[in-house]
């Protein structure tokens, strides 16, 4: 089990309050595999430094979780399949 930090950049056209429930649904895969989700931090709408898919805004969310490498990889894959997800970034802050 490792500690990961996952940043998700979502489409600005979705409702901001639906963000947390829908992310939670994605995170079920982590919970089912014995991992834990420590924190979901929704930053909300933010201006992008450059346009992504013709959009100049995005909804940022940062998730702290502890999980197995395969689980986290699967989570990242599923997120990227979703059309509402513009970018994801998975980082292990304590790797060094």
């Amino acid at each position: 089990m490792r500690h990961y930090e996952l940043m998700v950049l979502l489409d600005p056209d979705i409702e901001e309050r639906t963000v947390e429930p829908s992310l939670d649904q994605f995170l079920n895969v982590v919970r089912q595999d014995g991992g834990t989700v420590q924190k979901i931090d929704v930053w909300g709408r933010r201006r992008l430094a450059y346009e992504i898919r013709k959009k100049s805004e995005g909804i940022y969310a940062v998730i702290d979780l502890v999980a197995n490498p395969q689980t986290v990889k699967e989570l990242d894959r599923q997120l990227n399949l979703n059309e509402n997800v513009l970018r994801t970034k998975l980082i292990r802050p304590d790797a060094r």
Partner: protein
Amino acid sequence: MTKAPARKPKKKVCTFCKEGVDYVDYKDTNLLRKFISDRGKIRARRVTGNCAQHQRDVATAIKNSREMALLPYTNVAR
């Protein structure tokens, strides 16, 4: 005429070493903005005065940050 006296460069101390930072966060854009030029380029080590290790950490953090559109890849000149 005599040449201008050779300038002694002031030795800068790496700000991260001074504060004992061991992880440069890519989410902290306010901090990282200090290390990019107004064109969006990463400032050189001789400008920032960072040590090699921390300069590298900053550069990686900036690059991560750019991928998430938190920082620009380029800024058009004003």
